[in-house]
């Protein structure tokens, strides 16, 4: 069977890696990558070779995406283009439009299409929020007491709502919704990876959250399987085990600076205004209460486990940035 796969968000790291893996698969006849900005150049910004991926520059918020889908007989759509932090130039409103309106346009185009039969959407475990009143480990069907009220996580909740509605209207399609833990690895550049490379790590006084990461290699592998086989449903994706924030700081050999939560919030806000870090209010909650998800549904469905545990993914990230604990390398 010939496959034509559309991948959105190929100008970002994991999207680009997925496109290049799919492009290398002989069973897939065409890979079309779209994004609002062109992919970073190979030499300058550590870009990734997209192989024979055909790049189309499309603003997802415009109806142009429908033309791309109609013109190319696409059968599989992988929607990776969720922006997790507002860009300095554009701001939060544009980010929300990109995430929510962009997804609506894409799903609308898929719904009208006669060729698309598989849709994979990247979401985030941030949809569970972080709260002291929620269970320690989230399974896919749990809903949090206090759902996320800001930013990326709120966008993801809205996006998931549209995806579920879409799955109901087109029961003939295989719709997979993947809730990823924070990406971690040598090539990942996210607010969290930038946080861990700071010389001093501000933390919320009196809290030591449990964190979970998924290695970029595992994320790409999960997406590849979802894009080439039918696995309808909602799945959590995270490396086994957890790390405490204090443990992360020790492994990175970085001192922590405990701040009372109002001070932490203030520091985050001013750092964001100064353009130093991307910071959003839901991060205070994550940095206080943490979040852990259960991945047994994914493991049962795929008969496969992420190769990297949360700890191994983090260690691989540290290795790539040359960070090591006090007194040298761990054994």
């Amino acid at each position, binding site marked *: 069977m010939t496959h034509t796969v559309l991948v959105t968000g190929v100008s970002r790291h994991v999207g680009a890696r997925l496109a290049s893996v799919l492009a290398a698969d002989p069973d897939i006849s065409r890979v079309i990558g779209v994004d609002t900005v062109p992919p970073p150049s190979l030499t300058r910004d550590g870009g990734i070779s997209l192989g024979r991926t055909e790049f189309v520059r499309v603003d997802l918020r415009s109806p142009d995406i429908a033309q791309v889908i109609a013109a190319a007989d696409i059968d599989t759509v992988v929607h990776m283009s969720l922006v997790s932090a507002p860009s300095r130039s554009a701001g939060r409103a544009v980010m929300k439009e990109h995430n929510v309106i962009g997804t609506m346009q894409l799903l609308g185009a898929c719904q009208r299409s006669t060729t698309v039969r598989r849709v994979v959407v990247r979401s985030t475990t941030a949809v569970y929020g972080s709260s*002291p*009143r*929620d*269970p*320690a*480990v989230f*399974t896919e069907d*749990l809903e949090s007491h206090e759902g996320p009220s800001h930013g990326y996580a709120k966008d993801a909740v809205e996006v998931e709502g549209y995806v579920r509605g879409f799955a109901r209207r087109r029961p003939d399609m295989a719709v997979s919704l993947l809730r990823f833990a924070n990406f971690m690895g040598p090539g990942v550049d996210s607010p969290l990876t930038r946080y861990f490379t700071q010389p001093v790590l501000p933390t*919320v*006084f*009196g*809290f*030591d959250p*449990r964190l979970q990461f998924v290695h970029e290699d595992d994320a790409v592998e999960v997406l590849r399987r979802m894009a080439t086989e039918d696995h309808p449903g909602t799945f959590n994706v995270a490396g086994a*085990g*957890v*790390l*405490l924030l*204090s*443990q*992360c*700081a*020790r*492994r990175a050999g970085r001192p922590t600076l405990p701040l009372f939560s109002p001070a932490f919030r203030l520091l985050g806000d001013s750092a964001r205004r100064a353009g130093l870090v991307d910071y959003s209010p839901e991060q205070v909650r994550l940095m*206080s*209460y*943490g979040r*852990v998800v259960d991945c047994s549904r994914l493991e049962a469905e795929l008969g496969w486990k992420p190769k990297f545990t949360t*700890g191994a993914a983090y260690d691989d990230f540290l290795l790539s940035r040359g960070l090591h*604990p*006090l*007194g040298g390398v*761990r*054994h």
Partner: protein
Amino acid sequence: MTVPDDEARVIPISAAPSFEEPEPLAKLLAFIRRRITGDYEVDEFGYDAELTDKVLLELIRPLYHRWFRVETVDLKNVPDEGGALVVANHSGTLPVDALMMQVALHDEAERPLRLLGADLVYQLPMLAHLSRKTGHTLACREDADRLLRKGELVGVFPEGFKGVGKPFSERYKLQRFGRGGFVASAIRAGVPILPTAIVGAEEIYPKIGDLPSLARLLGLPYLPITPLFPLLGPLGLVPLPSKWMIQFGEPIRTDEYDASDADDPVLVFNLTDHVREVIQQLLNELRLRRGPAFPPFF
């Protein structure tokens, strides 16, 4: 090089003739090194077994052995392995009884206790992460089920704040047992319920009064007045050295029920009542057996 399966055997390093138990100092240094470099494991609930055993419990062991002289009765009723639900009475104004029960089970039965705590605990700085590191988690159905399925020993105090914050005049009278959610969890997991009585905690901070408006202001369930607190300030926080006993009763089996019976409110309610009666009975007997709270005086 490959080795045939039947020849490959794991030989513990301690079996080697030249192996010597490492020096205490070397062990301590290795421990410090692991802690500084972050080279240790916590489970998905945040339980840090090494920190709990080597540091946190170590800090309260003197309280257990010297101050309260805790004595355990019928430890044989604690299963050596597999999931079980320890249900105990709760008292003492501050939940010191939970920590003492944890030391008893950890040190004398060699079972880490996974306590279920109120959500207030997880909102408060310091307490939130210390509680998770010592293996406790939020009292909710999902966490209880998950721990029991993993074969852990889970501890609950169904009286909650009603028990721990009751006035001294009501000592050793079990309060209401909530909706019996703990019984439903035990039935779903098919694990035994271990009724447990703790005697001694009632006398550590005799609560003779309450400051309800100040408590509301601070967001606390109650703010106690004891003979020494707030009269002596921080010194009033020193618990009185009562004599403690902890008795583990006969396990109550739940494996003859069907998992769907957990949704039968009448059955759950009756079983909850039964557990409550058994604990009250244990409590009355154990209190007589202990005698005076502050021997040899009164």
